[in-house]
């Protein structure tokens, strides 16, 4: 599917900023998001392609302005809601 995620060859993003080393997670919540995604992926409620679809269909402005793990978090929330695993009310009161 054509979309904002299809970045190959696009101009205008500037230099690659690559520090010589960096920690696996830049904030503790990033690790929680990665691990929750792995565990929820293993439930079989969705597969890797479905998971990608829900990142790729984030609004383009959100996609471009969100960090990697923020996108993973938005994806996980959207998927859990779409599959009826959680409700908006539960997320709000969690």
């Amino acid at each position, binding site marked *: 599917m054509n979309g904002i*995620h*299809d*970045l*190959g*060859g*696009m*101009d205008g*993003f*500037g*230099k*690659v*900023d*690559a*520090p010589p080393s*960096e*920690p*696996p*997670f*830049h*904030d*503790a*919540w990033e*690790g*929680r*998001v*990665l*691990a*929750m995604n*792995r*565990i*929820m992926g293993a*439930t079989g409620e969705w597969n*890797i*392609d479905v998971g*990608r679809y829900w*990142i*790729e269909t984030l609004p383009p402005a959100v996609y*471009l302005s969100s*960090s*990697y793990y*923020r996108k993973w*978090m938005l994806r*996980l*929330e959207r998927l*859990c809601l779409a599959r009826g*695993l*959680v409700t908006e009310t*539960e*997320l*709000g*009161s*969690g």
Partner: protein
Amino acid sequence: MQLRVRALETVLTEKGYVDPAALDRIIEAYETRIGPHIGARVVARAWVDPAFKQALLADASQAIETLGLEQKVGDHLIAVENTPSTHNMIVCTLCSCYPWDVLGLPPAWYKSTPYRARTVKEPRAVLADFGVTLPADKTIRVWDSTAETRFIVLPMRPEGTEGWSEERLASLVTRDSMIGTGLAKAANEVGA
């Protein structure tokens, strides 16, 4: 974001979908055990053992299996060999696919828009961002990863390392040299 993540974890825990201790174990594995040192072992073995190198280039997933690593490597890992005439780079233009099992989690720049957008169009300019300049007549081959097929670069063995042990050779193999945004360290860059 931290509060929002905690809210989701709390709800999923209460409903029995996730166990916080299991999350801890996954995080710990990526923070301490799964990283580019695994890929470095693979490369060092390929440098000293021609039969292993041949097997690695034929079917990397299967060849790496024989090293008895902690975690099973994905089914479609492909090793691409740097030679005097060809340099390889890996990217995932669509997202962030990366050989986690042998390199650990991808660095943030690998997942960044500039790297994903530019590597397939101007790989030499991207290499310049990493301080790497290659001869103009060297072919650069860029491999775009997918969720199913991931790549690892087999960098060239540095000169002056004849007779080195595998362990010492592995210390020359950087993460970036296995992505193709760098080269293996020179022999004089590491201690004896």
